[in-house]
């Protein structure tokens, strides 16, 4: 039984053998078999003839049980496969304009055991419509319903020029569906996955032409980048991920062999290097090593009654009440 099932799965599916050329030679008009397409405004519908239509001319073969006359796999004889529409296309309007000349768009049709594209593709459209701007601007969804179903590769004219890497978040935030028409999620995850095995730059050193963020020795300048644009880092990396890496690299406080990165005067107010001023300027740097929640060493000194005093900025009290501090779990580390 298993063997039979395997054989059934491995067998080529049935294909209905239809030689267009012979029917054209026999002067069978397209409308004879495809009548419904002439009034169709969309591609959702049934546009292929049923068996009854074939039997109008081929009843003799049916009577003689010549099933192979039409079916490539007689054992699994089936109907035409159902096709989901991939295009927005109004046949009714186009048939009228082309004066019923279907070959304007369908010059090569499938023959027996030789499949062909249903239409002549972009060339057929461009013979009447100027889509140059649409192609350049990647406005594919004007006509295409589901681009991921095609074997498409973007051409240079629709590549994302300039500093698109920095700009793309803004575009994707407002028009993500447009991005998704060409890029599947795995493409986004190459860079955005928190679960990724390693950086995309490390995996693709053979693409020096691509705009990558962490290329080559990014690690050496990452403190400068993080200070200039901390949000750019925080969009993907949480403060705890900074701390984890610093711990593993033995540069965070408390890790084996770590040396303090803080300058002299770090604990002296007014010294110019006082940690309070530095923290106000760049709290992410502090968090990249000291984000242990209630166990953070800032809590030890800055909790209510501690020697460090109130660390909140001046406007903080105007926005938050003390009752809020007693009910909000994240405040309780200091306000017990």
């Amino acid at each position, binding site marked *: 039984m298993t063997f039979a099932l395997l054989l059934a*799965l491995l067998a080529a599916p049935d294909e209905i053998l239809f030689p267009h050329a012979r029917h054209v030679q026999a002067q069978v008009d397209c409308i004879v078999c495809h009548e419904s397409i002439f009034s169709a405004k969309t591609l*959702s519908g049934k546009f292929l003839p049923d068996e009854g239509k074939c039997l109008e001319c081929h009843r003799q073969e049916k009577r003689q049980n010549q099933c192979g006359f039409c079916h490539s796999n007689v054992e699994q004889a089936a109907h035409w496969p159902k096709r989901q529409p991939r295009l927005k296309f109004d046949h009714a309007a186009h048939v009228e304009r082309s004066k019923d000349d279907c070959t304007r768009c369908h010059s090569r049709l499938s023959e027996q055991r030789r499949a062909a594209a249903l239409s002549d593709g972009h060339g057929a459209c461009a013979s009447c419509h100027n889509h140059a701007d649409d192609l*350049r*601007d990647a406005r594919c969804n004007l006509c295409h*319903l*589901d681009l991921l*179903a095609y074997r498409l590769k973007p051409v240079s004219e629709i590549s994302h020029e*300039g500093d698109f890497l920095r*700009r793309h*978040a*803004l*575009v*994707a935030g*407002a028009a993500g*569906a*447009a*991005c998704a028409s060409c890029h599947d*999620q*795995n493409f986004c*995850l190459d860079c*955005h*996955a*928190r*679960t990724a095995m*390693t950086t995309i730059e*490390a*995996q693709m*050193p*053979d693409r*020096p032409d691509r705009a990558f963020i962490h290329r*080559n*020795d990014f*690690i*050496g*300048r990452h403190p*400068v980048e993080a*200070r*200039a*644009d901390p*949000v750019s880092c925080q*969009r993907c990396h949480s403060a705890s991920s900074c701390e984890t890496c610093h711990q*593993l*690299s*033995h*540069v965070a406080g408390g890790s084996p*062999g770590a040396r303090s*990165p803080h300058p002299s005067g770090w604990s002296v107010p007014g010294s110019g290097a006082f940690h309070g001023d530095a923290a*106000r*300027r*760049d*709290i992410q740097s502090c*968090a990249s090593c000291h*984000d242990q*929640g*209630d166990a*953070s060493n*800032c809590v030890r000194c800055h909790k209510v009654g501690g020697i460090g005093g109130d660390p909140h*900025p001046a406007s903080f009290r105007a926005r938050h009440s003390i009752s809020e501090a007693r009910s909000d*779990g*994240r405040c309780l580390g200091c306000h017990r």
Partner: protein
Amino acid sequence: MSSRRLLALALLAAGAARADGSATTFFDSRPYVRDSGYQEEPIFESFSLFARADGGAYLQDVRIVARGWGRVTLGLPLDDHRTAGDVDSLFFEGRLFQRHLTLRLGRQMVTGGAARATQIDGAFARIVAKGVGAELYGGVPVDPRFAAARGDAIAGGRLFWNPAFDSELGASAVYALKRGYVARKDAGFDASVTPVRPLTLSGLAQWSVDDRRLEEARLAALVQLAPQLQIVGDVQRTAPDLFIDRNSIFAVFAEELRDEAGGEIVLRPLRPLSLSADWHWLRVEGGHGQRGGFRGTLRTGEDGSLGVELRLLTQPDNGYKEARLFWIRRLDPAFTLTVDLDGYWLERELSLFAQKRSLVATGTLGWAVDEAWEAMLAGSYGTTPYFEQRAEVAVRVAWKFGMPGGAR
């Protein structure tokens, strides 16, 4: 029976009409800042699969997407785990009601509006009719290595109006818990509009509901004066402390504001030559700075190019100047050589490290064995602020498959 045939059977049984995927083996020996230089030598194996079927009368465009990886580390592992692995994505997607409703279930990424780009284990639904629609999602935010903490959850949604392919307006909200505390509670507005053909305006504003402050506001105008000339102007205001989870102890300390304004220009005077320049003024706590750059790329024959890149970044504490040269040369249809020379100079040395200069040279040789197989060998050597000498070797072997009909 070959593994390929088995996979084909499995996909046929699942009703998939087309499946594409890849399996990649990757070795990367690179140094880390630990004990004056620590070389880790992991071998990764990753896979990705994208299977699709047209579906039937009720469910259309059925997709199964999966991607994951595993790792074995030779020698002493940096993170004390000799083996590791994770799943980046694993979801099932389908569309119903003549493609008006999209449903996705599993590990996935949600994007758009206040969601930013967030990986979740959960469900996503998008419904759209006559250009008006809504997106809803909910689940558990993904942490690496399946380490989702108890009490983590995320939910959100976005309403949008899509009057044309090139225009969309949206209003969104997101609510996230981390270990039971509110980590994000944001509302946002986003827009991308093309009022006239050469001009596209994009904007995004995000409001922290708990802190009653603007978290982020961005506006960009892109003008394509000619197919060869593109100009972009943009402004941005962010509150970086609000990008730290609200339940972090550090989120309450800083009240930081960062502004940025500038633009870029892209020029293609000749078809193979592309020139671009950008400059932005930055205002950060404690002062201001600037970032800017120039990039020129000349295409040399089929898939070959020569590029130069100059970059500058200054901020109150430090800054750097960078120069980079890269070259891609196809030796014959099967072999490709690349060279990348990258150097930067810091204005001030980093804490604990005296050297301000970084120079790294990288070379790769790629071999496209056939339609399905490719291999790459890369070597890199340099001197950097963290390492007096830094060497890296990487090897990648990839197999691409597609059924029916071979790899695409």
